[in-house]
């Protein structure tokens, strides 16, 4: 077993070891830590100082972790030398130990600017648990505390001290706070906020001397001014710890230089974290540690391959209630970089995005960081933002699920179908190491119901798993890993006329419940009757033309065009219900009647006795056309919505669509039949009809978009038919019209339907007419089932007593 020595027991080193353990148990590992604490979360020191956490709360790996992973831990030992030839390290306890591989994760040291008196009592850094403990002992109401340094760390120290009651002044050398993360305006906004909260800020002040007789009493600046102070915190930056690297003759610039595999110039020595310089950059934030650690772990365990490409510097923090976020390259004075800005000084909100080549290059947010996830994602993905150029800072209208996942409490239910809370999902992600939506679905069942929480789940993944990436290419499913667009193309050009053929040629040969119905629709749609129908590729509803219920029985919804029925129909429904002991008769929200709890074997007889066509309530196809009573009865009606609705239903019924298609026709803008939340709607007006598409009122709520306004009913019906056929041909399977029109954009939809050249429109209508001519009422199958056992339960040829 090879011997791995790790210098540094901080976040970087230990996180890297965790990754190494995942790869293989081939190393005998010893970790040296200069501090006497087990590995803790350094970025939470500010929370400890602010009294939000106890010291014990921030431990990451307790002693038991080291033990159970057979890691020797040497705390309180400082490594003083490396002999790369003998392959040994020497500690300040005099021990010399051999290594096969050496990992330097030595971190960084606070930078002490040149000034007099930094060794006086009452002068501290803010870097480790001991510093924090000392500050906690001394910070109290009445104490005048000065923080030298207005960067991230300095401000966090200032916050903690203020919470402890101290009277805090931040002294900063630069012309703005957090100059590494913020531009001038951003710094200004932050300063204002912080001052409002009671912390004094002095900019462009260089401290020349810390005054006091033994104990600190004040500060003198280079301009000669002085300031009183009973406590001084120096947080002026950090310096990578590179001495050991130098001693080992490694290449060292500002940090120990590593390549894309996290290798130093010595093949057996690796380095990670704040002591490292990669591609001329030294990182001081936490995210890069993990990214580097993963790569290093692969390299060191002999799985050299993954490369580290550098990290996007992103910092998100709350300084005294002020949210600040900064990521990427925020300098817009460089050629080719454009900026979009929003400022509201009195609200304290400042936003700046920098763009390069149409992609996001950097972000600064002060006072409102709700969108930081969105921006981080854009930064990582290099999303082309040209299409949403006008909505970068303010999305057109927030989608339902667009809320910042961070703002959701852990106890809140994310997936209502399955009753899964945010906490459940987060735990599962952590505990089971989930990285993809599919894994979250499988492990927690979240998002496996209606899917309305899919975006939220993705949001959680993005927030928790740094390496989460959305599938770029939305393939149909693992069985046939192509996009639906590709598949439609293949079906057409390769003349594939059955689902099984597609699966055999392009897929895994057997398919599943996801791809089979989708392929079935594609084949039907493309070949329109000129092909083999394969019932086995269809969901049970489409085999028996009824909707399977919770207990395995079925529901029967006959078609009632436009919702209009008659005493005779009502009586037949009543008779059938009683004859077949239908447990419940209910009016549906689609203006029809539903017979619930029907046995499969009774279906054909019930259909026959009802004498009504199938309402297709069980399938991805034309559901109903809801109507209001329009000019036939209503005193407000301006159009004959009943006749128009019945005609629309007649023209489209019995056809299949990528997802269910609901329609509505109303006689006036009062919209009583809610046509504007249907897939296709017609809204009557005095003298004209508005044809609208893409409405929804189910798991989404969406007002339909106007397709066109026309004068005659015939024109309106034609417009609806054009859109209907276009949707049939171009939408992905299981894509509702409201997603379809959003994906394509209404401009395109209009251009390719109602505003298309006459020949294109005619072709759409011709194809629709052909499909319509071939379609028939599914319930007529009662007379000649495709398969003799379609509806009956098989009776065994011999009986047996069991």
């Amino acid at each position: 077993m090879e011997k791995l020595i790790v210098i540094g027991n901080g976040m970087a080193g230990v996180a890297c070891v965790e990754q190494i353990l995942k790869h293989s148990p081939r190393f005998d590992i010893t970790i040296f830590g200069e501090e006497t604490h087990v590995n803790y979360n350094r970025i939470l020191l500010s929370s400890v100082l602010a009294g939000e956490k106890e010291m014990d709360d921030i431990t990451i790996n307790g002693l038991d972790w080291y033990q159970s992973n057979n890691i020797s831990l040497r705390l309180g030992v400082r490594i003083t030398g490396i002999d790369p030839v003998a392959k040994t390290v020497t500690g300040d306890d005099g021990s010399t130990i051999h290594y096969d591989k050496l990992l330097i994760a030595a971190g960084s040291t606070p930078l002490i600017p040149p000034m007099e008196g930094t060794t006086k009592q009452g002068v501290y850094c803010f870097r480790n648990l001991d510093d924090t403990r000392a500050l906690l002992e001394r910070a109290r109401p009445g104490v005048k505390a000065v923080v030298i340094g207005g960067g991230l760390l300095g401000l966090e120290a200032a916050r903690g001290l203020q919470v402890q009651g101290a009277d805090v002044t931040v002294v900063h050398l630069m012309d703005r706070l957090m100059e590494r993360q913020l531009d001038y305006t951003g710094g200004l906004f932050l300063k204002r906020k912080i001052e409002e909260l009671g912390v004094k800020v002095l900019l462009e002040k260089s401290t020349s001397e810390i005054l006091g007789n033994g104990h600190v009493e004040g500060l003198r600046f280079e301009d000669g001014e002085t300031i009183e102070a009973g406590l001084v915190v120096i947080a002026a930056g950090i310096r990578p710890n590179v001495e050991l690297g130098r001693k080992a003759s490694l290449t060292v610039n500002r940090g120990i230089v590593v390549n894309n595999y996290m290798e130093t110039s010595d093949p057996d020595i690796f380095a990670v974290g704040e002591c490292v310089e990669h591609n001329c950059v030294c990182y001081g934030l936490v995210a890069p540690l993990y990214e580097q650690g993963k790569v290093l772990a692969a390299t060191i365990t002999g799985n050299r391959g993954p490369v580290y490409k550098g990290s996007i510097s992103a910092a998100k923090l709350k300084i005294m209630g002020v949210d600040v976020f900064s990521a990427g390259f925020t300098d817009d004075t460089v050629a080719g970089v454009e900026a979009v800005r929003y400022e509201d000084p009195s609200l304290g909100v400042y936003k700046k995005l920098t763009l390069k080549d149409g992609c996001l290059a950097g972000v600064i947010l002060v006072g409102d960081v709700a969108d930081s996830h969105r921006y981080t994602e854009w930064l990582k993905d290099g999303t082309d933002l040209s299409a949403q150029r006008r909505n970068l800072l303010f999305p057109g209208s927030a989608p339902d699920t667009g809320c910042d996942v961070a703002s959701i409490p852990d106890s809140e239910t994310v997936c209502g179908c399955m009753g899964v809370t945010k906490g459940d999902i987060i735990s599962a992600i952590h505990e089971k190491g989930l990285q993809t939506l599919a894994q979250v679905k499988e492990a927690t069942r979240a998002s496996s119901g209606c899917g309305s929480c899919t975006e939220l789940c993705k949001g959680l993944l993005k927030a928790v798993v740094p390496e989460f990436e959305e599938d770029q290419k939305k393939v149909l499913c693992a069985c046939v890993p192509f996009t639906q667009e590709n598949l439609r193309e293949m079906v057409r050009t390769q003349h594939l006329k059955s689902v099984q053929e597609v699966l055999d040629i392009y897929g895994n040969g057997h398919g599943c419940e996801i791809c089979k119905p989708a392929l079935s629709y594609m084949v039907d749609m493309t070949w329109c009757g000129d092909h083999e129908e394969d019932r086995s590729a269809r969901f049970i509803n489409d085999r028996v033309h009824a909707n399977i219920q919770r207990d395995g029985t079925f529901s029967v919804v006959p078609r009632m065009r436009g919702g209009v029925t008659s005493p005779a129909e009502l009586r037949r429904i009543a008779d059938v219900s009683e004859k077949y002991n239908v447990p419940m008769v209910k009016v549906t929200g689609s203006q029809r009647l539903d017979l619930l709890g029907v046995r499969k074997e009774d279906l054909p007889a019930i259909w026959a006795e009802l004498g009504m066509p199938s309402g297709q309530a069980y399938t991805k196809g034309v559901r109903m056309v809801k109507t209001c009573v329009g000019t036939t009865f209503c005193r407000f009606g301006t159009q004959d919505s009943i006749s128009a609705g019945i005609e629309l239903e007649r023209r489209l019924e019995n056809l299949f669509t990528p997802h269910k298609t609901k329609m509505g026709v109303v006689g006036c803008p009062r919209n009583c039949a809610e046509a504007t939340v249907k897939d296709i709607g017609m809204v009557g007006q005095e003298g004209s009809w508005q044809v609208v598409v893409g409405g929804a009122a189910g798991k989404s709520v969406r007002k339909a978009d106007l397709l066109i306004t026309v004068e005659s009913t015939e024109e309106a019906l034609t417009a609806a038919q054009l859109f209907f056929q276009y949707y049939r041909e171009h939408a992905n399977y299981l894509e509702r019209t409201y997603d379809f029109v959003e994906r394509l954009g209404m401009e395109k939809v209009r251009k390719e339907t109602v505003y298309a050249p006459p020949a294109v429109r005619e072709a759409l209508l011709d194809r629709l007419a052909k499909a319509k001519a071939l379609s028939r009422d599914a319930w007529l199958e009662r007379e000649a089932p495709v398969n003799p056992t379609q509806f009956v339960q098989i009776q065994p040829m011999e009986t047996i007593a069991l």
Partner: protein
Amino acid sequence: MKWIKITETSNIPKREGRSVKVGSHEIAIFNLGDRFLAIQNSCPHGGGPLADGIVSGNSVVCPLHGWKTCLESGEVQRPKDLQSCVRRYPVKVEEGVVLVQIEATAKGRETQERMCTA
């Protein structure tokens, strides 16, 4: 153990299932093209009729909530790690007729337990 004649093979279309009641057993028989397999016609999750499910390779997906069960081992494959399973029934085809074999009811539960831990 006795083999019970169930139905002609043509009554169960390729890649589909059909249910049959034999005594107190409700069995789902599937035609996988090259062979027939049988399991209990009730999903261990919500009792869904597995015979109505979509066949995916040598598994069937319950039409109610998508649990996926292996027709050969009887084990639930989705959700994972459930250690749940359904009862299997031996099947053979003779002279165009599907036959199944049913163990005595008393031993049913035991068998199931054994299969799950196997």
